[in-house]
């Protein structure tokens, strides 16, 4: 989506932000709402760091840190296009995505997707749609550091299936 001349990407207006710092969910929701009285529903998804990986789900503490790498420029561009697609599909007023990169520890927030609409149904759907899209098409890579060393996280076929439910067939795994 093109922005007007002089548009400045800052925390108050940008739909997509990639950052190393933690973020405040309440502030992000307020920035999405912008006191728009038409909004009656804000649905948020918050992804957080787990202390165990998918292959070792019963082993608490098997993941000590999570490091996230991304493709600067393409990441923002691809998520922005996903939000445009969400606006075409759902009756929503806005979407905001904040995704962290760099080093993180268990329980810390990684990603926030928030969608605003008049009623809950559209924002629930838009939030899940953007998240399903992001999981398989946005250029981020996770590396887990555990007791037995570091390893890149494998992509999951179940995430491709989640995106396919929306009629989008772009296999990643």
């Amino acid at each position: 989506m093109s922005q007007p001349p002089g548009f400045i990407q800052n925390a108050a207006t940008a739909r997509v932000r990639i950052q190393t710092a933690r973020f405040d969910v309440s502030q992000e929701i307020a920035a999405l709402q912008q006191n728009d009285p038409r909004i009656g529903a804000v649905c948020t998804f918050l992804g957080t760091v787990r202390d165990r990986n998918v292959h070792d789900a019963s082993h608490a503490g098997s993941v000590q840190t999570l490091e996230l790498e991304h493709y600067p420029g393409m990441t923002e561009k691809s998520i922005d296009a996903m939000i445009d697609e969400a606006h075409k599909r759902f009756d929503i007023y806005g979407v905001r995505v904040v995704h962290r990169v760099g080093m993180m520890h268990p329980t810390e927030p990684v990603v926030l997707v928030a969608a605003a609409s008049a009623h809950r149904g559209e924002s629930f759907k838009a939030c899940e749609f953007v998240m399903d899209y992001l999981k398989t098409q946005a250029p981020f890579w996770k590396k887990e550091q555990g007791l037995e060393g570091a390893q890149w996280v494998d992509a999951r076929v179940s995430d491709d299936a989640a995106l396919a439910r929306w009629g989008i067939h772009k296999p990643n795994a």
Partner: protein
Amino acid sequence: MHIHLKFFASIRETMGSSGHAYETQSQTLGQLRDELVQAGGPAAQALGRDRVLRMALNQTLCEEGAALTPGAEIAFFPPVTGG
């Protein structure tokens, strides 16, 4: 044709580089992949046909048939795992 290569995550590690300028004879992404593999070195392993990888042309995900353009930014990376 003069292009710019970028590598991310496990591919970056195997290549030992995050990218560089490159002069290619290839016309498509798939041909470029094969050309890099045939040139040998770490690319033979990082970009080999036994590896599942994804490619972007000017920061858009593309299939192997996508046509290269002069000055293009081509990225090779493993399946994505964000979120």
